């Protein structure tokens, strides 16, 4: 009974919904501030994402004419729940170690749910531009999933004995040094960062929500609290993906003593790399994105996998 209550608290407060939402929103501030500095601007104050969130919660929800109401409103919540579970799994595997079974396949599966939620929500909104966004998002998911999975399984191949459990990977790295020290895992890390760019729909792969042609595409018809949930899911993804990369490639999260500072530095470094790629690249077309992911990126990922099998 207490463990059930503990799991519910884990899901809702720490390290689940509340914690991930707060840190995720702060991370979007880092994103906006770094973007502003790159563009030689000052940028918003630190509380800006929280003000946006509060304002959106207080606004009216407009349901478009002809939309499927249930699917339209429930799809973003599915994405929010999925990303919360992923964050909880990652943190519990890092904090509790062997006591918690976190499975990497489950993480990969749950990380696609936000994209699927956006596809369902956009398709239910009966807006032609949102439908175009949904179809592009579908193609993008098909494109980046293959190299992403190969990149993550490169890390699994390096762990001895081979394990899919998150805590096993963290413990292996604690015993023998970080996986990022290997050539194969450096390649896998680069591939994973590129796929994270597409997973977050950041430029150069913001094709589903292209602001200038599709007017925010998949998010177009969302307003008020529903839009707040969509933005929150994106913010939490921006928090969860770097945490995943730190967990499986870079030694895991340490929250005691100087290790906490080192963890924060690692986290901010990965976020800054993602934001700098976002700010220095133009948007590509969907066919170019699919060709890029199935061509060079998959080849790179396979080379990393082969190196890992060869023992490098």
């Amino acid at each position, binding site marked *: 009974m207490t463990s059930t209550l503990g799991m519910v608290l884990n899901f809702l407060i720490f390290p689940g919904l509340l914690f991930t939402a707060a840190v995720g929103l702060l991370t979007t501030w880092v994103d906006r501030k770094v973007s*502003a500095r790159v563009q030689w601007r000052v940028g918003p*104050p630190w509380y800006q994402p929280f*003000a946006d969130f*509060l304002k959106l919660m207080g*606004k009216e929800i407009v349901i478009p004419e002809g939309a499927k109401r249930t699917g339209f409103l429930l799809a973003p919540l599915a994405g929010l729940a999925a990303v919360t579970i992923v964050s909880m799994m990652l943190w519990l595997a890092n904090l509790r170690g062997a006591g918690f079974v976190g499975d990497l396949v489950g993480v990969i599966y749950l990380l696609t749910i936000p994209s699927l939620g956006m596809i369902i929500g956009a398709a239910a909104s009966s807006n032609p531009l949102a439908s175009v966004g949904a179809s592009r998002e579908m193609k993008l998911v098909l494109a980046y999933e293959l190299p992403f999975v190969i990149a993550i399984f490169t890390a699994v191949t390096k762990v001895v004995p081979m394990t899919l459990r998150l805590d096993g990977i963290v413990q292996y790295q604690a015993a023998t040094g970080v996986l990022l020290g290997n050539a194969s895992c450096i390649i896998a890390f680069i591939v994973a960062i590129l796929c994270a760019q597409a997973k977050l729909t950041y430029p150069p792969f913001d094709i589903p929500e292209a602001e200038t042609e599709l007017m*925010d595409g998949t998010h177009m018809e969302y307003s008020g609290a529903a839009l707040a949930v969509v933005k929150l899911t994106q913010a939490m993804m921006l928090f969860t993906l770097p945490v995943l990369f730190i967990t499986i490639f870079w030694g895991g999260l340490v929250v005691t003593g100087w290790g906490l500072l080192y963890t924060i530095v690692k986290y901010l470094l990965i976020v800054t790399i993602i934001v700098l790629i976002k700010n220095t690249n133009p948007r590509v077309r969907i066919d170019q994105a699919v060709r890029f992911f199935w061509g060079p990126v998959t080849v790179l990922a396979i080379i990393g996998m082969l190196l890992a099998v060869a023992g490098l």
Partner: protein
Amino acid sequence: MGAKNWGFKKSLWLFHLNAGGCNNCDIELLDCLCPKFDVERFGIKLVGSVKHADVLMVSGVVTRKVVPELIETYEQAPKPCAVVALGACGCTGGIFKDGYNFAGPVDKHIPVDAYIPGCPPRPEAIIDGVVKLLGKL
């Protein structure tokens, strides 16, 4: 209520609606977002969809053709939503007030919260108008 109002004041998302203007006010509006003025410091940003908007910036003389679209866009915007008439044409009709295709200024069709005159208004004037709008909220 206090927190909601604070959030609204700190994060105004503008939707830009051209109701038959000559594009001059629109360019000045975009100037506000450039590094020199950088209104994102105050949480103001442009959004692409009217469903995300808090403020409708209506520029241009309202032509007869555009009146139904103007009213429908206003109705689709989630409330609370403020409306700003941008430029001399939006406020009064300007030099087109006797035109055959002029359907009356913006406030004849939808309620307007703030007027920013000028042909075109300078970015400083637009920021000043938005500050006055914030004082009204």
